[in-house]
C-alpha cells in the first residue's frame, strides 16, 4: 500500500506536502520541461509586485559553505503580466498555485493579492521578509504592527483563500510576529525566508554581491529553520509551510516531524532540478519503510 501523502494545509487540500519555495522555481513554467507541475503539492510563485521590478545589480549570487546568498531584489514583471501570461499556462498543466505577493506599502500588497484572487489561484503567500529590498519586505516583517496590518489587508481581499505569511527570523522574535499575523487573520505561516548574509571577495577586497548583502539559503540554514518551525508549532500552533535547506525526503521529514504541514523546496531545485518530483516518491518510500500509512500521523510527532 502506497502511504497517503495528502495533507490539509489550512483548508487547502494538497496531493502531497511538497511545494516549491517562492523565487527558486520561477513561475513554474521554467521547470515544466523537468517536472510535471500537476504532480507537486503546489507551485509557489516568485514574489510579485504591482509594477515590474528590475531587481538588484549583479553579481546576485554567491556560494557559501553548504549554502548560497542571493540578492535578486524581487525582479519580476509585475502582477498583470503574471496573471495574463503565466497563470493560464499553469492552469493548463493543472498545477495548484500559491501566489506570493510583495510590495512597498500595505495597499500594494492588497492590490497584488486582489488581482491574483480575481484571476484564480489556490492560496496567497505574503512575503514580508525579503532581505533584499529597502522598502517593504524585511522592514514589514520586523515590525509586528506592520506585519499585522499587511496580513489583515491581504486577508480582507483574499476571500476564502488561505493566506500564508512568510516570515524571517532575524531581527525579530518569530513567535511574536507569528502570533501577530495569526491574530490578523493569517491561515498559516511560511518558515523561513533567507537569513541576511554577506560574502567577501578577498582578492578584490569587496563584497561579492552587487547589492553588498544578500539572503542566505540552503542546507546551511536548515537547523535554524527547524528551530523556527518547532517553536511556531509548539508556541503558536499555526499551520506551517516549512523550508530552509531541504535537499531530500529525509530533510522534508525532519520539518514535518517538527510540525510543518507542508514543505517547500528552494535552493534544492538548483542542485537537483527534479528534486520536487523525486521527493514525493522519496516520501512514499520512507513512510512505507517505517510502516507509516498516512503522513498526517507524523506531523509534529517529534514533540511527543
Amino acid at each position, binding site marked *: 500500500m502506497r502511504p497517503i501523502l495528502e495533507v490539509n494545509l489550512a483548508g487547502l487540500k494538497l496531493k502531497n506536502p511538497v511545494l516549491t519555495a517562492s*523565487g*527558486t*522555481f*520561477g*513561475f513554474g513554467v*521554467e*521547470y515544466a*520541461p*523537468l517536472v510535471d507541475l500537476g504532480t507537486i503539492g503546489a507551485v509557489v510563485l*516568485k514574489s510579485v509586485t504591482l509594477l515590474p521590478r*528590475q*531587481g538588484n*545589480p*549583479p*553579481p*546576485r*549570487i*554567491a*556560494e557559501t*559553505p*553548504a*549554502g*548560497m546568498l*542571493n540578492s*535578486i531584489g524581487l*525582479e519580476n514583471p509585475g502582477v498583470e503580466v503574471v496573471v495574463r501570461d503565466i497563470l493560464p499556462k499553469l492552469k493548463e498543466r493543472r498545477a495548484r498555485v500559491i501566489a506570493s505577493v510583495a510590495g512597498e506599502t500595505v495597499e500594494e500588497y492588497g492590490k497584488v493579492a486582489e488581482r491574483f484572487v480575481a484571476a484564480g489561484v489556490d492560496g496567497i503567500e505574503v512575503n514580508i521578509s525579503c532581505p533584499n529590498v529597502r522598502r517593504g519586505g524585511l522592514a514589514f516583517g520586523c515590525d509586528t504592527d506592520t506585519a499585522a496590518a499587511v496580513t489583515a489587508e491581504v486577508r480582507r481581499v483574499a476571500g476564502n483563500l488561505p493566506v500564508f505569511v512568510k516570515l524571517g527570523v532575524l531581527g525579530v522574535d518569530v513567535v511574536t510576529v507569528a502570533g501577530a499575523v495569526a491574530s490578523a487573520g493569517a491561515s498559516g505561516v511560511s518558515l523561513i525566508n533567507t537569513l541576511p548574509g554577506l560574502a567577501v571577495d578577498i582578492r578584490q577586497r569587496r563584497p561579492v554581491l552587487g547589492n553588498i548583502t544578500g539572503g542566505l539559503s*540552503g*542546507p546551511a540554514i536548515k537547523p535554524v529553520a527547524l528551530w523556527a518551525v518547532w517553536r511556531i508549532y509548539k508556541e503558536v500552533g499555526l499551520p506551517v509551510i516549512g523550508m530552509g535547506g531541504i*535537499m531530500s525526503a529525509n530533510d522534508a521529514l525532519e520539518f514535518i516531524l517538527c510540525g510543518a504541514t507542508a514543505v517547500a523546496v528552494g*535552493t534544492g*531545485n*538548483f*542542485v*537537483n*532540478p*527534479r528534486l520536487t518530483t523525486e521527493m514525493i516518491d522519496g516520501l512514499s518510500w520512507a513512510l512505507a519503510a517505517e510502516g507509516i500509512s498516512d503522513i498526517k500521523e507524523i506531523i509534529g510527532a517529534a514533540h511527543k
Partner: protein
Amino acid sequence: MIYEAEIVTQRKVATGCYRLEIYVPEIARQAQPGQFVMIKTSVTLDPLLRRPFSICTVDRELGLVKILYRVVGRGTTLMAGKKLGRRLNVFGPLGKAYTVPPNGRFTVVAGGIGIAPLYFLIQRLRALGNEVNLFYGAQNRFDLLLAEELTALRTNLYTATDNGSVGFKGTVVDLLKSKGIPPADMVYAAGPPRMLAALSSVLKEAGVTKAEFSLEQRMGCGIGACRGCAVKVRTPDGPVYKRVCTDGPVFNAEEVIWE
C-alpha cells in the same frame, strides 16, 4: 536533461587547465555551439551549486561531451581530482547557441579559456566550408589550448600572448586592432569580461554591428527561473536585466552594457 555521466578522459592540457570528456550521448546529440552544461562537482553539500561549463565539442558517434576548464576555485579543484570511471552529475544542454549562418566569412576572437565554446563553433563553421579568421590570445604560449585541433581545422590563426612568447605581444584585442578587423559576416567572441568590453568598443568604433559574445555570470538554476545570472542590456525601453542562462549565454555584442 540530467545525467550521471562517466568520465572517459580527464587530462591536464596546460598549467591548471584540463580537458574532460564524459559519456553522455543525449547531450552530445542535442548540443549546439555556445551552449553549456551545469556540473555537480561534489556529492556532499559543499560545494553546493552546480558549475556552468561551455560545451567545447561533442563526439556524437561516441556519445561524448568535451569540456575544457581551468581550475580557479573549490569546484574546479574537486572536478580535476575526479579520475577516469568516476561519474559526474551533468545537467544540459542549456542556453542559447551562437547563430550559425550557412555561409559567409567569420571572425572569431578568443581570450584564454574562452576558446572552449568557440572551438565547437569553429568546427561547425569550417564543416560548412566557411572561412574563419581566429584571433586567439592567452598569457603565454603554453596557455594557447587546442593548438593541434585548431591547426587541423585550418582557420587563419593569429595568436597573441601577454609576454610575447609566441605571436603578437599584447592582448588579443590589440592584435586585432593592429591587424585591422577583417571584413566578416559575424564576429564571435568569448573570454574575460575586460577583453569583451574592450573588443566591444573596438568593434563599435569600426562600425561592426554583427557580433555575438559569450558571457559568464554566477548561476543558480541555469534555466531562467531564479534571475541570479543577470546582465544589463540595452533595449528600446531603456536598460533591463537579462538572464545569461536562457537569454544567453550568447548575446549580441551591441546590446550588452559593460559596467
